């Protein structure tokens, strides 16, 4: 790891002041509050105060039937709703021993990866906005719009999808979607080259991100950080590989890993992940089998046998797991949602210590936090 270009602020003076970053602040992208103890422009302590948008999703899960709770899961991280519904649907299917038809699994992979790309595009725009570059946001949203249009065509919604059902999908994909997705993967690759030329290789951006906000692999493990954060610290941890689910083992894809651990590494991981998602989508479209998209004999009211069930997916921000404890009723005894943003945020206090305010905000942006995902 190279030495940062500024002199680290080793000893904090006694004259510190408290700066409330949020709950309404342009850089927190939501209602996160960070209580900063500042020494001049250096951060002596950064204490995240979540809870401003807590909606008790876990508690809601405990007094609803499984089908009633399903739409809630897409509201937890509204930017990667597909992955979240996938985890919940997967947990119920695993417990109820429902076999999902292969076509449904392939479509799940396609839509999940599309959702990952759209989520990363939002992050790309918002992160550049944090760094003071406004223009990339509009380009990223232009690309994302194409994904939203595609997904709207088959799911009916543009953001909080509830497309996966216990045993399959809400409906089958049509020819328009398949053609549109093929066109999109062909369209997106040159766009990524353009982003690389215009944004990634910009000297100002490189200077702002390289060797800024280093996070070691140990720190990631200590706080349970997953997703692009831990992959940017040199650990090839990806739920799609480590705990394979759905039909991911059928596809060839790489797990982008950058060992530097700085903001640039996390940036590059996400940009590379878009490429890998495009690869997966292309393969899934090629191999897409015919057949039904809904399992037969899925009971109308699902009652899970008593036990403890867990299903993890690789959401856009890391490992999202749903754990259901059932006591043989039609509503679960306990629903535990393991959200990646919460763990990714928890390392912020340690990682941001002694940083300057703009660097700390670059670090926060590189963690890609979604506030409702932190609070749930």
């Amino acid at each position: 790891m190279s030495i940062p270009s500024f002199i680290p602020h080793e000893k904090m003076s006694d004259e510190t002041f408290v700066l409330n970053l949020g709950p309404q602040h342009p850089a927190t992208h939501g209602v996160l509050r960070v209580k900063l103890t500042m020494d001049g422009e250096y951060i002596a302590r950064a204490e995240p105060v979540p809870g401003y948008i807590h909606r008790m999703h876990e508690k809601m899960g405990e007094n609803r039937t499984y089908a009633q709770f399903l739409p809630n899961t897409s509201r937890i991280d509204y930017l990667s709703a597909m992955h979240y519904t996938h985890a919940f649907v997967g947990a119920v299917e695993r417990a109820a021993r429902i076999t999902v038809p292969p076509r449904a699994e392939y479509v799940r992979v396609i839509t999940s990866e599309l959702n990952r790309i759209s989520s990363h595009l939002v992050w790309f725009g918002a992160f550049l906005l944090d760094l003071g570059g406004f223009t990339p946001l509009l380009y990223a949203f232009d690309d994302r719009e194409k994904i939203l249009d595609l997904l709207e065509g088959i799911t009916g919604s543009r953001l909080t999808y509830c497309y996966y059902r216990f045993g399959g999908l809400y409906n089958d994909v049509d020819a328009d979607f398949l053609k549109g997705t093929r066109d999109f993967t062909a369209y997106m690759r040159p766009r990524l080259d353009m982003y690389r030329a215009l944004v990634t290789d910009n000297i100002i951006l490189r200077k702002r991100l390289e060797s800024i906000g280093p996070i070691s692999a140990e720190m990631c493990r200590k706080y349970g950080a997953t997703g692009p954060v831990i992959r940017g610290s040199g650990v090839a941890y990806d739920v799609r590989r480590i705990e394979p689910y759905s039909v991911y083992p059928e596809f060839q894809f790489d797990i982008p890993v950058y060992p530097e651990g700085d903001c640039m590494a996390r940036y590059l991981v996400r940009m590379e992940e878009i490429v890998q998602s495009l690869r997966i989508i292309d393969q899934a479209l090629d191999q897409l089998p015919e057949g039904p998209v809904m399992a037969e004999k899925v009971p109308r009211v699902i009652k899970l046998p008593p036990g403890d069930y867990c299903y993890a997916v690789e959401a856009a921000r890391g490992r999202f797991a749903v754990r259901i404890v059932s006591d043989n009723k039609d509503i679960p005894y306990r629903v535990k949602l393991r959200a990646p943003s919460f763990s990714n945020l928890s390392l912020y206090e340690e990682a941001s210590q002694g940083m300057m305010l703009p660097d700390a905000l670059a670090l926060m942006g590189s963690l890609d936090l979604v506030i409702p995902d932190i609070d749930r």
Partner: protein
Amino acid sequence: MNISEPIRLLLFLAGIMAFVGFNAAYLVWVERKGAARFQRRPGPTEVGFAGLLQPIADALKLLSKQVIVPPTSDAILFRLAPVLVMSPALMCLAVIPFGETLVARNINIGLVMVFAFGSINVMAIMLGGWASRNKYAVISAARVVSQDVAYEIPMLLVVITLLMVTGTMDLNQIVRQQAGWFWHWNLFKLTANPLMPVTFVIFYICMLAETNRAPFDMAEAESELVAGAFTEYAGMGFGVFFMAEYANIVVGCSVATVLFLGGWQSPIGVWSGPWWFLLKMYFLVFSVIWIRWTFPRTQFYGLLNLSWKILIPVSLFTLVLSSIMLKLF
């Protein structure tokens, strides 16, 4: 022309105020429209043809709003800061030669005056930030001071280099020396100093930093400091700061045009006149807008490093080179 001096001055005063007002309003429109084009969207379209009345609508909205002075703020300084930020820009334009005779007050140390009044801008933003008694505003005020002090030095070093070439501080005289084809511009006077284009680039970068424009907009880093020194300003208090930003860009680009790009001189040797001055100045203004919507913001210590480690040594070198060339030839 047989206009008496007081009336002439009054006319110029009105002219400059109108010029600044018009520019401040319509550069906002150009900026919004330009930004929209860079971002593949139409920009303002609703108010008037192509949104041309949008600045007037915005100004009316800001004027109709209450100017809120926070109870904890220093009320006098808080009100003084917007005035202080606007007036130096007007003063600087008084000595800028728009044309051969189109200059409000042609004084022989015009260049000194521009830089003397130009640095008041810093103090005004600092006062505004300090008087607000807001933590974000105070951080912004501290940033503005260290940034503008750091960039004043290479800027003045570059100007001294140029003064060695021109031998005069009279802005109109400097323009007259650049008569003829465009290779007579100070920018291309390579015989006097082979690094003249470099000095122009340094001057341009410093001008961006002095006017707090992206990628050096540390004072108003909206994703870090909300609105920086202007966080507590509402209504026209904010509007004046906003206008002053554009007025200062106009001043900075005018000075760059006069010093390096031949002012009102025609690049092809004939039909010299104010239109050339305006054309060159607005080209520079457009490039400023272009840069803002293309690059992300620099890091604060990166900004200071750029000044102290690169710009100041390079500008010192051009200064020395210029004096050696002056002695040799």
